[in-house]
C-alpha cells in the first residue's frame, strides 16, 4: 500500500508554522514573550528617555514608592535597556530572597 504525503497548504501550513501557545493563569508565557519582544524590537543603546537607574532599582526593591511619572509612563515597555536592567534587578532580588529564606536572620 502506498501512503501519499500531503503537504499542508494555506491556513493549515500557517497553523503548522505558528502553533497556538497556551498560557497559564499567571500569564507567564505572555510576559516572557513580551520581554523578548521588547528586547528585540526596542533597542535603545543611547538610553534616550530612560528613567534614572536609581528609579529602576527603587521600582524593583520598593515599588510602592515609585509612581508612573517617575518611570516616565510606559517607557520600560519601549526600551530594551530598561527591560534588561529590570530583569537583572529582579534576578538579584530573587536571589537575595532565596538566601534570606535559607539563612533567616538570627533574632
Amino acid at each position, binding site marked *: 500500500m502506498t501512503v501519499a504525503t500531503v503537504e499542508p497548504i494555506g491556513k493549515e501550513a500557517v497553523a503548522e508554522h*505558528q502553533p*497556538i*501557545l*497556551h*498560557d*497559564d*493563569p*499567571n*500569564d*507567564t*508565557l*505572555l*510576559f516572557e*514573550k*513580551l*520581554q523578548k*519582544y521588547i528586547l528585540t*524590537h*526596542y*533597542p535603545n543603546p543611547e538610553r534616550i528617555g530612560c528613567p534614572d537607574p536609581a528609579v529602576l532599582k527603587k*521600582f*524593583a526593591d520598593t*515599588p*510602592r514608592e515609585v*509612581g*508612573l511619572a517617575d*518611570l516616565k*509612563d*510606559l517607557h*520600560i*515597555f*519601549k526600551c530594551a535597556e530598561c*527591560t534588561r536592567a*529590570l530583569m537583572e*534587578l*529582579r534576578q538579584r532580588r*530573587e536571589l537575595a530572597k532565596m538566601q534570606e529564606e535559607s539563612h533567616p536572620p538570627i533574632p
Partner: protein
Amino acid sequence: MPLSSPSNLCWNVIFPPEQEWIEKTLHVAIKTIWQRARNTARTQFGDESLAVEIMEVAIEKAINRLKEGPPVGSDEASLLLDRFYAQEARRRRKANRKLTFLGSSAELPSNPVQNPLAPVDSAIDLDVILQGTPPEVRLALLLRHSRARWSEVAEILGTSAASIRVRCQRALKKIRHRLGISEHGK
C-alpha cells in the same frame, strides 16, 4: 575588451552559389554602419556591447530579405541593414520601458535590507495597544513585567490577584493577540 565584429559572429549561414553575393555585400554593409551601430547602442542603452546582439538580429533579417529579391549593391544593403538595426533597437527600447533596472545584483548590499522604520513601527504597535489604558492598569502591567506573579502585583497595589488581572484583561488580550498567544483554557 574589444567588441567582436558581427561578421565573426554571424557568418555561419551557408549560402547557395547563386546567393554568395549576399555574403560579400553584407560584409561591406556591416563595415559601413558598424561604428554608427555602436554609437547607437552606447547612447540609447548605455552599453556599446549590445551592438553585437542587435546587429546579429539585423543581419538575420537582412539576409532573409535579400534572399527574396534580385542582387543589390552594398549601398542598398547598408540602408536595409541600417533599417533592421534601428527596428531591433526600437523593439528593445520598448521592452526596456516595461522594466526598471536598478543596478546589478553585484551592487546590492550583502546584508538583507532592513526597514529603517521597523523600531518606529513596533513603537506604534505597543503605543496603540496600551493607548487609553488607565494609570493603575499601566502601573500593574509594569509591575507584572518586573515581577513573576500577579499575587505580588496585587499585594503591592493592595488588591487581589483576580481583581487586578481582570482590570488588565483588555490590554492583556490585545498583547496576546499581537504576540500570538492563546489565553489559558481557551
